[in-house]
């Protein structure tokens, strides 16, 4: 009863659209990751909302989070951020003292907001931290195979390239796997993701080879290690990442090359997938169709477009897969280089 009231109140007084804010944040800042964008959107929501009690704040937060998760086709990445923020809020409120339940709510709110911003700033810096941790993995004369458009990987590789000519001249080569699926997506003319990184590396004098996904097994013999990014790191130490990462992991394992994952620790998600099909998102990757189905698909195109539900399905170019922990040699995060099994330890530390 109370919830519907507050919901109505929010809708009436503040036409704040969390989903739009989130999307706007993501598109405005290329360096922003999904969890951070989610946190920033929530902080913005709190600054604009007129909530005056703790439970009202928590309620609002919960609703907006649920709404956000529903509206985004792949909420795995952002859920790491929203969970983290919610957890942080609750622990702050539970702490005794001025900011605890007994304290002045205004003070609590300003504290929360300022800390939220601080968190966002820190999260943005974490990529540099990862780069400094991971730099040691890139040795002279090594060849690195990577894929996707991970900014953390790009930061790491560029950091290593920057050092070249400096005190520790690291000469390395990069094999960049360019995804073919991203081309035939919404923007057919756009170059595959990762080309920006390729150009940046080449400009720094790093020899880069670009290969299609089908050539991974062929090229892996020439690589010394695989470094990939991740959208989310799950509880058992596996990663949810751009489609195609799993097969690279399997191939690396088969050929015996180390497989490293670069991820910020705010990407740790409280999620425990048991396999590829156990992810909480709907992906249309494997679709069986006969001639009849194809003919039918052409007809009701207009109806499907008007239907709001279709937007929730993940387009093929944004689809993800799950790389189980046994394929991962180590995770390079801003809290250090972790084995997959240490991820759950880190998560438990955050949550309890």
């Amino acid at each position: 009863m109370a919830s519907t009231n507050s919901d109505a109140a929010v809708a009436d007084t503040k036409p704040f659209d969390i989903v739009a804010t989130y999307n706007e944040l993501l598109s405005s800042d290329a360096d922003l990751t999904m969890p951070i964008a989610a946190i920033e959107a929530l902080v913005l929501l709190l600054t604009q909302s007129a909530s005056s009690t703790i439970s009202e704040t928590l309620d609002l937060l919960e609703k907006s989070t649920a709404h956000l998760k529903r509206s985004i086709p792949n909420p795995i990445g952002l859920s790491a951020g929203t969970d983290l923020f919610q957890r942080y809020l609750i622990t702050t409120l539970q702490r005794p003292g001025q900011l605890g339940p007994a304290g002045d709510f205004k003070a609590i709110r300003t504290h929360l907001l300022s800390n939220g911003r601080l968190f966002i700033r820190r999260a943005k810096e974490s990529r540099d931290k990862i780069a400094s941790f991971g730099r040691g993995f890139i040795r002279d004369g090594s060849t690195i195979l990577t894929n996707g458009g991970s900014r953390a990987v790009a930061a790491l590789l560029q950091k290593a390239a920057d050092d070249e000519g400096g005190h520790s001249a690291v000469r390395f080569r990069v094999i960049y796997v360019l995804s073919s699926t991203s081309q035939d997506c919404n923007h057919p003319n756009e170059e595959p993701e990762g080309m920006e990184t390729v150009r940046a590396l080449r400009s720094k004098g790093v020899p880069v080879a670009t290969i299609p996904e089908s050539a991974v097994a062929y090229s892996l013999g020439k690589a010394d290690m695989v470094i990939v990014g991740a959208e989310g790191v799950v509880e058992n130490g596996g990663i949810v990442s751009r489609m195609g990462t799993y097969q690279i992991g399997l191939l690396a394992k088969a050929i015996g090359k180390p497989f490293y994952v670069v991820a910020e620790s705010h990407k740790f998600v409280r999620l425990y997938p048991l396999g590829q099909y156990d992810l909480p998102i709907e992906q249309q990757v494997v679709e069986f169709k006969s001639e009849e189905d194809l003919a039918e698909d052409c007809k009701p195109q207009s109806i499907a477009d008007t239907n709001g539900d279709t937007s929730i399905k993940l387009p093929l170019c944004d689809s993800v897969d799950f790389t189980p922990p046994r394929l991962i040699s180590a995770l390079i995060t801003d809290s250090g280089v972790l084995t997959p099994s240490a991820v759950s330890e880190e998560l438990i530390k955050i949550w309890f």
Partner: protein
Amino acid sequence: MAEPSGPAPIAQASASAPSAPGQAQPATENSPKALPIRDSKPTKPTEDAPASTDGATDKALTPAELKKKAKAEKAARRIREKLEKEGGAVASTTPTPGAGAQARPPPTPKKDATNAGSAQKGPRAPPPRRGSGPLAQTGSVLVEQKKKKDDKKVAVFGHLYGQQRRVTVAGATKEVHPAILALGMQLMDYTICGSSARCVATLIAFKRVIESYTTPIGTSLARHLTTHLSYQITYLSTCRPLSISQGNAIRALKLFIAGIDPSTPEASAKISLCEYIDSFIREKITVADQVIADSAAQKVQDGDVIVTFGGSSIVKHTLLLAHNQGKRFRVSIIDSRPLFEGKSLARDLANSGLDVQYSLVHAITHAVKDATKVFLGAHAMTSNGGLYSRVGTALVAMSAKERASGVEIPVIVCCETIKFTDRVALDSIVVNEIADANELLPMGTPVSLVVRDPADAYVPPPPENKKGGARAPAPESPVVPHKTSSSPLANWHDTPNLQLLNIMYDVTPAEYVDMVITEMGSLPPSAVPIVHRMVTNL
């Protein structure tokens, strides 16, 4: 059982220590006849509980009797030693160093022996002076008897036999509370079985103990109650070795008792203790089970074929919850002898309208063939991520992982954090529990099982046929206990070179477990030590 006679067996040669109570007996009776009598007991297959009669004589001994027994044993051993040294020639002239301390002239051993309580020995006393023949015989009988006993212990597991299990309440010390006596009986005949159930039952019994406890004058509750409880604990552990969960609960309770302010009035201290126990049960088991069932049920999907082993209560909760949530899946229960814990699970699930398939563990490859997930209960989770559970669990987990058809089946363990331990288990040999080998005989099942089995084995099939629909469990029939009295194993005690091993648990290595669902969330098995540390620090 061996404890009350502590000093004597310790002084004894270490080799004979483990089987002290058993071998001591003939010495007390001190006639060669004692041996056949003793041996004949376990061999009678028609008796309901051969073990109980056998054990009753063991347990019926009061501490005083035990003392006597020990003395007699000591005497017999001395004489044996003497015989070995002197070849049985001149007994009195060169006393062994040990005997020298007591410096007994020839009549004295006779007197000792009479003291030792063997009534028949008194009249026969004079002969020993001359030849010490009968006594020498006793010695050899002892050796023979020992060999015989040891033969029946499987060598690798020898260290696990240590304590004979208690079979009756007789011989319990006066401090043991009736509630504990009752619980002990229920534990020893598996009426209360399963790690959580044992833990809850123990805590409830302790509540009764605490309610009827009065602090003796001159001591404080915080100090004395712990010792009072330790009598109960010792008694319980003689009925059946304590489970990890029981141990953890007892540790928490003792810690709480030690934290009680000595100045607290007894009544309020008792009330706070009872409240603590209640909240402990609620938090660690009742609510924890609900949380676990909730999150485990989320892992059940439409069309799943779920394999489970034995009769874990939490797996039952999970499956029932998933069924109530409207998920459509099949359950394949793997069961094994001798406890047949899966039968009641099969019955309960089928009665609730689930599709159930029941088979024994030797049919595992068939059951695993079309499985999609494995749900397992746990007795304990060890710090290296190993799953310590009913024997056969490892077989199921490993078959699921190593299935030939390629795709791995996730193995999910449902386990409360109260069952976590800081121990490490590398194999199933070092730490385990050995139950009475007679349970392996069709006839030798404990009284309770004989009582329970017909209800479980004979009654369910008709309801399952009705309610379980078309998927009535086909392999049910071989499970029905045979009532034939001539089991080839019946007189295994007397059959040379035959050993029976009734082991209770096994360890599934961490790499065969994909996920552990606890009330603190889902973890990989490698996170067990962290969570355990966190839970115990709280």
